[in-house]
């Protein structure tokens, strides 16, 4: 293969023996192992790689790292297409396919660029002023067009085929960043004996050292450090791993990208791994990023950060141009000039400062590099790419001259990446000598080192890292190692010193010629900041939201500090008084898939299954989610659809006998000398005088006097009760009982234990229920005197202990049989087998719910914490003469003629149906607003041969017999109905006592 036109002979860190094929917009291209998508494109001579967000201006790469605002691509194909991937962060792999974004039909010829003609319209606040004001309706029309024109990459609609993992990790010291400071810190901490994790977002260790020539001293030091770190057993190195957020208690969330490994989800390999680390001590060594300079047309392709040009050269062996102008306000950019010179045709330096350190000037002179001081950029030549710059001198812009160039390396100084140190709420502090915001402090056990703190020189950064490593180890109780550190190369060049001479210039003079971009990704210019200031949005948080500055996918990494400087200038205040916007996680964009991890599909949340689950599946049960449980909805024996099946199952229960899995009911074993007193306090009705061997229905209230839960509780012995709760309320009830016992009444000698999973439960319901029991357990006495309605018996059949309680939810003769969960399937099958001659079959949740509606029993949709006992017709249950939870406020619960309470509703129009959630109105009343109530539960009643429902209606049973209208606006339905008693079947309960 031929190296691209940009590829130079400099060694770089690419592997020239491993060429890689990839494609951009379907065009076949090549690069090398070690390239990023960005460096491979630049090596191929690419300049325009995208169009800007708002004005569709041609853009090239601005940086070589995580801060790049311009080079966004959609990477991958089909259901693996990832939008808005940064070309600077995508490692090249064989066959990688990328598409450019926000350009139609191509980045070269972009119809959207007409937006640039309307540029005066698209200033700060443009959308709102234009479309949200008096002509609000037009916003609806324009919004879609604008969003399409200003779009980023499109998210895919297919399910993500990749696998993501989440895990937890624990360590003594976590070091974030493996630049010079991080390497020093990790070594110092690990040598002290602490367990250390070192997280680096790059695939290589070294940070900014990776942009140094591979033949230099710093590379020798870097490789020695890496070798030593790898040899330490207690040190774990995580590459491709970004710390995206720091949270309470030293918790850090790391995202490890494995995209370059091409993981196979079918083999269980994860594309990305989210690690939640709890570290005893944390070292921030996140370094600093370079800032652009702000001047007219500073966004032309070919204008990039000096550090980026240097990284492309030294790391990727790519010269981004042949004739370079280095434009700077500080010393660091000279390194780019010196490194580039041997590989390209010409280099000159335009320094905005009046004075340059003599040693720098001397070195430049010895290399034949022209340095112009007091430089001013009067203009940029070229549209699709930079062709030259017009330089002037001083404020007066005297002696204008055009310099032809195809690369401008700019440096506005360095901004520490203080993001993570601010996630805990500690504001950054402005350090004037560095013209930079540094961490304003650290949480206990957190330490900072290196460029993050403003230590921009290599030896100082390493020293600070070493020191931080010791402090962190000591914080965790380790004695710092006495052994010294691999001494870092001394400052090899005068610019690499702690003086870091910089003259902060937030905006070059003459910036109003052409658009001077501050935020490249969101197309925010100096002019926008001026407008925001004029219109009173000078506060940074306002400025950000008004201009959208810093609100792109890059979160303003290259723009925020320049914007602060410019706004501070407009307001006539110092940067230290301007403050910053709030840094919030994540530091870089995180895939939602990575955060979800394995909690997708069936694993979205835990699923509970009864011990009879497998039997249900094997016998034609169609399952349905009920809270956390999966329950049989209906069985195929009764019909192919739920509409048919549940009616057949209801007939079975009303006329023969059915069997239903009720294992999901909450079950609580209540024991202790004060158990009776305890239950008297938590239930509105009395349990202290309940005889042993008897069950009672009970209702619990909250302290606020409204409905909390209901269920039956059986007295097994003087000091022992067996409580059941609703399926949904099981967990809440247990916690509440524990709360009361442990905080309010610790003097009560009672223990509550959840036994929901210990017992399999089955309901045997129907007129032949007793026959079924007698056939299943011959020789046992189930007659009325031995086991009356609401009676309980413990029995042992064979060696199986059982608890049988005669209770009915359906209104038929019915029993609840509880057996140890592991024996559930055997007993269930035995019941069905011995009940076969009676026609016994299983029935599901739909029939269970419909049977109880015919009987007017309340369930989940009626156990509503907004309702009172009286609302549900349970007022007479409460024993107000004894104290119980909620009594005081229940006694004064809202009442009155307009209060809605429980009623039955029967459909008056054959051929029409009632629906759950329907809104109720009086007959003849306009159907408008919230109505007089609503339907809570509805079913077809095979017994009454009509739709019946229960619900809440203002005035309740005072309106018995009145005609109403059930409105269901979602389907445009109105159905005539009548208020009835909620008990549709056997109001005297004769069926229960047979």
């Amino acid at each position, binding site marked *: 293969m031929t190296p691209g036109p940009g590829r130079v002979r400099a060694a770089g860190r690419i592997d020239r023996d491993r060429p890689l094929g990839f494609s951009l917009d379907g065009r076949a291209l090549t690069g090398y192992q070690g390239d990023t998508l960005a460096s491979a494109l630049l090596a191929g001579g690419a300049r325009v790689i995208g169009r800007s967000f708002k004005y569709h201006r041609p853009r090239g790469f601005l940086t070589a790292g995580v801060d790049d605002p311009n080079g966004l691509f959609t990477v991958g194909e089909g259901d693996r297409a990832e939008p808005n991937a940064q070309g600077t962060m995508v490692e090249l792999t064989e066959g990688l396919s990328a598409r450019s974004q926000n350009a139609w039909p191509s980045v070269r010829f972009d119809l959207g660029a007409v937006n640039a003609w309307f540029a005066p319209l698209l200033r700060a606040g443009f959308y709102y002023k234009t479309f949200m004001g008096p002509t609000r309706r037009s916003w609806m029309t324009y919004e879609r067009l604008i969003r399409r024109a200003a779009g980023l990459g499109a998210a895919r609609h297919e399910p993500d085929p990749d696998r993501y993992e989440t895990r937890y990790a624990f360590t003594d010291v976590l070091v974030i960043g493996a630049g010079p400071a991080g390497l020093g810190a990790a070594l110092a901490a690990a040598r002290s004996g602490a367990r250390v994790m070192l997280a680096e977002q790059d695939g290589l260790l070294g940070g900014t050292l990776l942009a140094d020539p591979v033949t230099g001293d710093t590379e020798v030091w870097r490789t020695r450090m890496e070798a030593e770190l790898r040899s330490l057993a207690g040190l774990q190195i995580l590459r491709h791993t970004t710390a995206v957020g720091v949270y309470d208690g030293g918790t850090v969330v790391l995202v490890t990208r494995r995209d370059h490994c091409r993981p196979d989800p079918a083999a269980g390999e994860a594309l990305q791994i989210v690690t939640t680390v709890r570290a005893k001590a944390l070292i921030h060594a996140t370094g600093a990023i370079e800032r652009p300079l702000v001047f007219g047309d500073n966004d032309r392709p070919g204008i990039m950060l000096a550090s980026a040009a240097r990284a492309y050269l030294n790391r990727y062996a790519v010269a981004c141009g042949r004739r370079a102008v280095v434009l700077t306000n500080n010393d660091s950019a000279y390194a780019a000039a010196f490194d580039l010179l041997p590989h390209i045709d010409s280099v000159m330096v335009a320094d905005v400062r009046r004075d340059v350190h003599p040693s720098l000037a001397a070195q430049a002179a010895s290399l034949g590099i022209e340095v112009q001081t007091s430089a001013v950029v009067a203009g940029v030549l070229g549209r699709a790419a930079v062709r030259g710059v017009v330089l002037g001198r001083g404020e007066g812009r005297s002696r204008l001259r055009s310099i032809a160039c195809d690369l401008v390396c700019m440096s506005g100084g360095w901004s520490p990446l203080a993001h993570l140190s601010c996630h805990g709420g500690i504001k950054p502090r402005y350090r004037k000598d560095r013209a930079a915001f540094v961490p304003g402090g650290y949480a206990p056990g957190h330490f900072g080192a290196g460029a993050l703190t403003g230590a921009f020189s290599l030896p100082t950064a390493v020293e600070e890292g070493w020191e931080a490593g010791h402090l962190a180890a000591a914080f965790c109780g380790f004695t710092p190692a006495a052994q010294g550190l691999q001494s870092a190369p001394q400052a090899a060049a005068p610019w690499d010193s702690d003086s870091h001479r910089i003259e902060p210039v937030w905006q070059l003079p003459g910036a109003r010629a052409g658009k001077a971009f501050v935020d490249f990704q969101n197309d925010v210019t100096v002019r926008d900041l001026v407008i925001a200031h004029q219109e009173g949005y000078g506060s940074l948080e306002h400025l950000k939201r008004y201009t959208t500055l810093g609100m792109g996918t890059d979160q303003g990494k290259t723009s925020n500090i320049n914007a602060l400087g410019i706004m501070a200038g407009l307001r006539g205040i110092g940067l230290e008084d301007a403050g910053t916007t709030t840094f919030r996680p994540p530091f870089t964009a995180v895939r939602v898939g990575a955060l979800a991890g394995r909690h997708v599909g069936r694993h979205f949340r835990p699923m509970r299954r009864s011990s009879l689950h497998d039997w249900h599946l094997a016998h034609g049960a169609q399952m349905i989610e009920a809270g956390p449980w999966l329950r049989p909805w209906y069985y195929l024996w009764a019909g192919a659809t739920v509409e048919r099946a549940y009616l057949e199952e209801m007939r079975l229960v009303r006329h023969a006998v059915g069997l239903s899995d009720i294992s999901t009911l909450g079950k609580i074993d209540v024991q202790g000398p004060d158990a009776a007193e305890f239950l008297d306090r938590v239930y509105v009705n009395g349990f202290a005088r309940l005889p042993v061997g008897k069950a009672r229905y009970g209702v619990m209230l909250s302290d606020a006097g409204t409905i909390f839960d209901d269920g039956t509780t059986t007295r097994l012995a003087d000091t022992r009760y067996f409580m059941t709760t609703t399926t949904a309320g099981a967990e809440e009830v247990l*916690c509440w009982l524990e709360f009361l016992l442990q*905080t*309010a009444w610790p003097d009560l000698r009672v223990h509550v234990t959840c036994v929901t999973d210990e017992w399999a439960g089955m309901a045997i319901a129907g007129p032949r229920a007793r026959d079924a029991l007698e056939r299943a357990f011959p020789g046992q006495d189930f007659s009325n005197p031995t086991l009356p309605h609401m009676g309980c018996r413990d029995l042992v059949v064979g060696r199986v202990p059982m608890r049988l309680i005669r209770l009915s939810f359906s209104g038929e003769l019915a029993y609840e049989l509880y057996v140890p969960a592991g024996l559930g399937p055997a007993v269930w099958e035995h019941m069905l087998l011995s009940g076969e001659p009676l026609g016994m079959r299983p029935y599901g949740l739909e029939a269970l719910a419909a049977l109880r509606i015919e009987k007017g029993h309340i369930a989940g949709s009626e156990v509503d914490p907004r309702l009172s006992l009286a609302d549900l017709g349970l007022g007479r249950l409460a024993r107000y003469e004894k104290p119980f*939870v909620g009594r005081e*406020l229940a006694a004064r619960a809202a009442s009155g003629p307009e209060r809605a309470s429980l009623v039955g509703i029967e459909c008056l129009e054959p051929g029409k149906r009632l629906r759950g959630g329907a809104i109720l109105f009086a007959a003849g009343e306009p159907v408008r607003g919230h109505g007089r109530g609503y339907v809570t539960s509805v079913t077809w009643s095979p017994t009454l041969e009509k739709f019946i429902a229960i619900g809440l209606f203002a005035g309740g049973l005072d309106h018995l017999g009145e005609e109403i209208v059930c409105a269901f606006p979602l389907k445009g339905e109105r159905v005539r109905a009548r208020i009835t008693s909620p008990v549709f079947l056997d109001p005297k309960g004769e069926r229960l006592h047979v």
Partner: protein
Amino acid sequence: MLAIHCPLCGERPYTEFRYGGDASKRRPALGTMAPEAWHDYLFLFDNPKGPHREFWQHDQGCRQWLLVVRDTATNAVGEVILARNAGAGAGEGPGGR
């Protein structure tokens, strides 16, 4: 992530716990007939910046209700004791009950 030092189980992540509300209020004694007392207890809360007494239950551990002092400004967790040892009648219920 918050870590809470359970007196029985040691330091555990807060995801093992259930928050149970403000523990600075005193629960009216059972049978207290004054509705105002219940109203104050159930519905009126301070919103302090700084140390805050609150209930947490280690519901995925020992199931004990704990009295935890948490700084609402920094999320730093201070003293943690078993609620049963805090004296009878203290506090508010889980989820505002």
